């Protein structure tokens, strides 16, 4: 599969996913209550989106020579997304202070920063100072590993 065909294929998957999500949402809303108050916006809106998805799906299938803009390679974005997912899912037990410092250090290392002292100094200083600032400003406790949760 060449890159153009792959792009169109994934484009079709995105359209189909949106349509599937909308259909599921409509079903969920209808199952919860079929009263007009519950469906006054959801029903017409869902039907419009589904119709638009069908039209766009057909258009994309018919388009033999689609124009595709230059895009960033997926291989360079996926590691960043994985790191971001790890950062957020670990916040509950690593805390904002350590979790943020580790995330920034890992990101810098991944993107070619090899000055170890610089990586450590920046990530720890940023992570801890911002965590300190927010925890002293916010009226509720923040998950922390080393710093106090609330001031």
């Amino acid at each position: 599969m060449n890159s153009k065909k792959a792009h169109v294929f994934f484009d079709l998957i995105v359209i189909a996913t949106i349509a599937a999500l909308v259909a599921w949402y409509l079903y969920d809303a209808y199952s919860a209550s079929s009263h007009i108050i519950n469906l006054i916006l959801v029903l017409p809106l869902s039907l419009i989106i589904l119709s638009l998805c069908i039209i766009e799906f057909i258009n994309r299938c018919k388009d033999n020579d689609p124009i595709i803009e230059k895009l960033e390679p997926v291989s360079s974005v996926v590691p960043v997304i994985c790191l971001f997912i790890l950062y957020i899912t670990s916040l509950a037990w690593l805390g904002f202070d350590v979790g943020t410092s580790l995330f920034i250090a890992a990101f810098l290392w991944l993107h070619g920063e090899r000055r170890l002292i610089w990586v450590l100094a920046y990530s720890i200083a940023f992570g801890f100072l911002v965590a300190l600032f927010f925890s002293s400003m916010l009226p509720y406790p923040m998950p922390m590993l080393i710093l106090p949760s609330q001031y």
Partner: protein
Amino acid sequence: MIDIIALQAGLDLLFADYSTWLIVVPGILIGLLFGAVPGLQISMAMAIFLPMTLYMDFIQAMLFLTAIFTGGSFGGGIPAILMNIPGTSSSIATTFDGYPMARKGQHNLALGIALGASTISVIVGYILLLFLVKPISELVLKMGPAEMSIIVIWGITLIASLSGQHVIKGMIAGFFGLLLGTVGYGEAGVARGTLGISYLLDGIPVIPAMMGMFAASELFRLVNTKYLVDDSAARKVSISKIFSGFKSVIRYPWVLARGSLIGVLVGAVPGVGSSIANLLSYIQTKRKDPDPDSFGQGNPTGVIASEAANSSSEAGSMATLLALGIPGGGATAVMLAAFSMHNITGGPQFIREQTDIVYAIIFANFGQAFLLIILGLMFIPILANVVKVPMHYLIPSVLALAIFGSFGLTGNLSGPITVLIFSLIGWIFKRYNFSVAAAVIGLLLGGMAEESLIYSYQISGGQWSYLLERPFAILMLIMLMASLFGGRLVKFLTKKVNVNV
């Protein structure tokens, strides 16, 4: 229209003691800081510093709180321009052209324009308030669900105009956003689309979703970029360019006037306020512009339209607070708390009996606008240095900041998780040409659209004739139609006349 004696008394209140003004500078700085840091809200700043106002007299307390409000209204535009993160929902439209300007190396100009538009429109807004405080409050009382529905529909029309070349995909994105805006408990008392997750019962947190869609998804796309601005010569922070941007605003008096008027009128509507005002001003400016396609590509007029409306909406929300005692949003709700802490009740009686205080508050805001110019010109050059930071430092720092901010908004990990999910959706949408801006607008308006539709349906009993009983709604509908199709109709008619001749 203006009570001269009360005006004199108001000015005496303001200038009798210089110490009254001492609290304005810290107020503006607090507002700037809370507005500029994504996730810290103006209302949060006001709530945190509210207890301090116990030790102030009422005028000082109002000056301090409105200074935070004024500083914060402008501050929200700074991350919108530099990082594509709308600090508040009232800065969404600022990202549309502000961020592309920053990417083109016009960050100095964009920030100067934002400051100019904000300060001038604060002044224009309060001048309007000075003359129109009573008519505005009467207008607000006439706003029923039918009128609210029309305002929301007006906002939704922006979805189509933001779709760009991929119209159907833009509409899918916008309507999908609208649908997502209805997730959670509806008016029928049943939960929809929550997947059993209790965090979703109140709906999707809009600002964290916005942060994910706009900022985080854009940062993913920039992972291979060295700097936010490619050209090293354009990365300089230049006070003269910021100042020239500031001055350039006066070349667009109609954009400023339209934005300010929309800001005051829509800002006065409780619950709608500045979130929609900036979008309406942006749509109207785009429609009137001879080159509408340049919007979204870094057109300075787009920044002026958005900033003018969101800053002047402060005056609109103050009109509702002072004249009716109704808070239009979080910030004015905190002000209402300050009212009660000083045993004062807003409303028609307050306007009638304490007109001098109302005038003092209005004139204080003129002074605050001038102070904001000075403080803004000092503050912006420091923040503009963001463009000099290498992207591999900027990306994780801004992502982390968005996560802290989203936690600050929700008070639990649902905020960061929302940012994560919507950053992925935003990245996929951008990659496959679904308009992210349209999706965000939909998300913002979804709940409001459903609520106003239901109320209209309940009041009208499903009868369209109800609309005919609401002359104000008909007038708004005509204005909406004229703004949508007026230009095309005139073109069509002129063409026909020319053919016949």
